[in-house]
């Protein structure tokens, strides 16, 4: 995907976000509010922001909006519930004496355009019950499914990716 198509946020604003994230990580890691700790964290965060902000902007993260943030939080909750389901699902399949598996490799299509959105979708699919992403090419995802319920692209996409896509679409468009 061409970097020019991505709606860039202001260079200063994106640097500021990156700086805040780095600073929070520093505070969590050092776990103290001493002046010298804060000062060294400030310097390191500023240096890293200076060197990394170009890469960070290339990700094409969208502007922060209330609607986007709300959808992202909803997405995180859906993801967490899916992770819990996934673990019990795999545990069940492993412990069952007959191992009820019906594995296969299928293709699904995604309507997401941005690379970062596709990466998040692929990672989510990996964390959800019975599926993980093998490869991505443009809008097609190659997916291994431990219990194939449908070989047809549309039907499979409905069962696997739709629940994430509807949130990610709002977040990234």
């Amino acid at each position: 995907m061409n970097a020019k198509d991505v709606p860039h946020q202001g260079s200063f604003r994106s640097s500021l976000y990156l700086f805040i994230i780095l600073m929070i990580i520093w505070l969590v890691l050092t776990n103290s509010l001493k002046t010298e700790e804060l000062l060294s964290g400030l310097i390191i965060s500023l240096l890293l922001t200076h060197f990394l902000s170009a890469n960070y902007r290339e990700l094409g993260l969208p502007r922060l909006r209330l609607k986007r943030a709300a959808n992202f939080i909803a997405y995180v909750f859906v993801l967490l519930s899916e992770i819990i389901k996934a673990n019990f699902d795999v545990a069940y399949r492993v412990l069952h004496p007959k191992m009820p598996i019906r594995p296969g490799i299928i293709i699904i299509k995604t309507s997401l355009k941005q690379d970062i959105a596709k990466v998040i979708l692929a990672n989510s699919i990996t964390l959800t019950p019975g599926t993980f992403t093998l490869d991505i090419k443009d809008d097609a995802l190659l997916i291994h499914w431990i219990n194939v319920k449908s070989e047809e692209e549309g039907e499979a996409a409905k069962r696997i990716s739709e629940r994430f896509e509807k949130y990610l679409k709002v977040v990234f468009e």
Partner: protein
Amino acid sequence: MEFFGMVITGIGVLFLLLGNFGILRLPDVYNRIQAGTKCTTFGTFFTIVGIGFLEPEWLWKCILIALFVLITNPISSHAIARASVKIGVPLCDKSVVDKTKEFEEKEEA
């Protein structure tokens, strides 16, 4: 607090054990990666957060580490799986469908 931490760590270890069972019992690379990814996500997450509860000073650090594991775990499994597809590791006999060829034939834009 200490008891709570022990319970959480225990749950984590239990899921790691289940993941190991999965790796031993399931038939081929891809299915094993399924067990390896899913159970370790839960397993490591709970083990690390549980340690955080046992040692309250480390709690935030532990949560940060757990989040990093949560984000990077799928990536490593994806890398292994993709390599397996590229060198043509076969699927097990139980498999019902394999669209790898169809996927490889797609043109890279």
